[in-house]
């Protein structure tokens, strides 16, 4: 059974979640995404994109659907995962006061789902003030702490020094290492999604991806790839993935290990956690291909090459 990847978009009221979701729905690049939102009213889908509207679900001409959460996220999500055919990706807009890690727990427990990341939006203009608010300060801080990456929105509205101060505050006071700046919800799809490598040995996808990388750079990101015809040592690989540089946003690709002969693993890593889905498949060429996407300036390529090579089986 393919597990449906689930992305959670968190962040306090007014942090820019809706803008981001709008972009996702429009730029889904052929993926049939189901987006669960708190309020249709805010989403503002172009009328010419809408092909159907039934109850709490709007269907779009690009194959995506948009569902309103209503009073119960749990019921809305159950409805979406039971759809036939199931969506290729689910995105949940967490309510402005939700603790996103609680929603993530659902993806962790349901064998039909796979957590594809908790992305928390933070309004560059307001987040620091909100984090000190007497009523909602703790809620805002919990949300930020739960993030696999923080999408710092509205950065065009703050001065450079203020931005630097925000980065330092998020890193030091909140303890978040992965921060991506965004304006009007613009974030490369490679950062938002990790579904390029669903099928083992899909060479075409890899090529497509290479092309993408270049485009994705933006000047905020850098990518690095590891390719090998050997196999990893499972234990060493685990240690390595648990200790990647703090700026790594995502890692994805396929790999083989000595411990799982005859199987190809699909790696999905976001922020601090990762998982490998195994499929029985003969080794392709190359046997391993992994791509890391990181905040620019955080990857020491030489050191990475050395560390990944060391994780190969003897």
């Amino acid at each position, binding site marked *: 059974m393919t597990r449906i990847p689930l992305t959670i978009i968190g962040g*306090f*009221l007014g942090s820019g979640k809706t803008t981001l979701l709008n972009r996702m729905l429009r730029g889904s690049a052929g993926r049939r995404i189901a987006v669960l939102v*708190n*309020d*249709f*009213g805010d989403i503002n889908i172009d009328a010419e994109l809408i092909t159907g509207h039934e*109850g709490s679900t709007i269907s779009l001409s690009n194959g995506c659907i948009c569902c*309103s959460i*209503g*009073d*119960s*996220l*749990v*019921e809305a*999500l*159950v409805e979406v*995962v*039971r759809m036939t055919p199931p969506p290729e990706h689910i995105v949940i807009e967490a309510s*402005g*006061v939700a*603790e996103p890690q*609680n929603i993530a*727990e*659902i993806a*962790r*427990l*349901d*064998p039909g789902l796979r957590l594809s990341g908790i992305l928390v939006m933070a309004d560059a203009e307001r987040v620091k003030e909100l984090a000190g608010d007497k*009523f*909602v300060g*703790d*809620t805002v801080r919990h949300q930020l702490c739960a993030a696999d990456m923080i999408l710092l929105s509205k950065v065009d509205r703050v001065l450079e020094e203020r931005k630097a101060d925000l980065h330092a505050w998020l890193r030091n006071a909140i303890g978040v290492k992965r921060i991506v700046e965004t304006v009007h919800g613009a974030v490369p799809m490679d950062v938002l999604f990790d579904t390029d490598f669903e099928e083992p040995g899909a060479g075409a996808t890899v090529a497509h991806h290479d092309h993408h990388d270049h485009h994705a750079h933006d000047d905020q990101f850098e990518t690095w790839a590891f390719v090998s015809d050997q196999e990893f040592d499972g234990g060493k690989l685990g240690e390595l993935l648990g200790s990647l540089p703090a700026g790594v946003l995502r890692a994805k690709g396929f790999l083989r290990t000595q411990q799982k002969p005859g199987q190809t693993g699909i790696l999905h890593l976001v922020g601090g956690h990762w998982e490998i889905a195994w499929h029985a498949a003969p080794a392709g060429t190359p046997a391993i291909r992994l791509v890391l996407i990181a905040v620019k300036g955080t990857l020491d390529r030489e050191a990475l090459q050395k560390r990944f090579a060391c994780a190969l089986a003897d």
Partner: protein
Amino acid sequence: MTTTVVYEARKILTMNPGKPTATHVAVRDGRILAVGSLDEVQAWGAAEIDRTFSDKVLMPGLIEGHAHVYEGMVWNNIYTGSYDRRDPDGKVWTGLGTIDQIVGRLAEACGKLDDPEQPLIGWGFDPLFVDRRMVASDLDKVSTTRPVFIYHASLHIINVNSFVLERAGVTLDTDSEFILRDEAGKITGELAGHVGRYLLYKSVGSGEFAVPGNTPESVRRYAKSAQMAGVTTVTDLNNDLLQPTVDSYVKVTAEDDFPVRLMPAMRGTAQREDPVGYLRSLTELNSDRLRFGLVKMTVDGSIQGFTARLRWPGYFNGRPNGLWYTPPEEIKRVLGAFHEAGFQVHIHTNGDEATEAAIEAIEAVQIEKPRPDHRHTLQHCQMADAAQFRRMAKLGACVNLFSNHIYYWGDAHYSLTMGPDRAERMDAVASAMRCGVPVAIHSDAPITPLGPLFTAWCAVNRRTSSGRVLGASECISVDEALHAITLGAAYTLKMEGEVGSIEVGKYADFAVLEDDPTEVAPEALKDVRVWGTVLGGRIFANPRVLP
């Protein structure tokens, strides 16, 4: 020609301080024409004298300011609580004190199900009051071939059988704080919070929630539940008011034998294009038995579920602070919109930090758009202190306190959630009155049983289920409590000009009692027997069910 009926009673408690008691009440056109002695009420001319109540005590129809139509739906499932509870048909379901008894009741119900796939659902289970912890293997004795699950009274946890666990994909290795384990580390079949609910719904379907809105039958049963308790005006204090629900309300409240005046409160944060305009359009459907116009908002969760927002020093057992269900700035925005449009907003706050946020929101909208007599009402408001009550009084707000909590969860609040000091001033009716806040008290049915006389007993005696008196200084007199469940509650609904006392011009709505609540011992207030009600002059006798 209009007829006048004079009801004779052993005693009439009018709740009108100008004429506190009487023996006769004359009714014409569904309204009260006169109150007093037979001579006095006959001054209006010829009347038929009805002696049905000659040995009964009449009070104004009781008013439940905070309950939910869900009370009419829970009885589709099996009651598994530890207190005796009466269903809308008048049958008393005995409280069950052991797991074996609960399993027995469920097994009996299971035997009556025809559809082999149909889930068997229990409700009202309270783990604090049974002999041991319920586990999946207990419910396996009910069935291993269909889903069996039981909602805890707190609604936070659900016990399921192995069939559900298996379908949900829960295995021995499943590790989550939402899937509970016993001391030995074994999975118990208790699924917690929204994660537990997700696993349950995904594996067995969302059951009763699959149908949007409320059916006519559930509204009728809700009204029956109210009637059984002597209630003639009842709220449904948080409803999205989808079209099917509105249709059900309009349909059943027009039926001659519908026994209550129903006041639904629209969930203020429910998604729709123009919430204020929608509510305004609903008010055009208003009748003498259906009154749209209330709004409900929810600030935080529950204290016993540790989701209420507390001020310092937080939860007594050190649990982290609870959750904002609606963030304070959103409360302010939505409240502001309805406030400006002239609607009355009922705001759920359990923890004292949530109460603080609600008070600040009311203050802000009052400064921005001052509006006399708005009567926005804080609902539950269980942890408010005197300073907060004083601010509420100054701002023109009302409060509806959750007195039943003292009995059902008072012991848990004392030892677990709030600690002694704050538990002793929870649901502080006396403080609220001293500070000049108009007060009502409520059941939040089906969270606790619908029964204003029981709620009054709680406010008067403040006894927990273990017998502890929780804060004697917050006890109120019987008269004050009877006021709270009649005129007091009516005031919080802006209905005190029409109901809540037996006075000329008001609706002829009465609670018909076998005993006089002002003469029984205060400790026996909850045992006062309800014979039935009168609504707009029509008699509704409660079904007599043999125990």
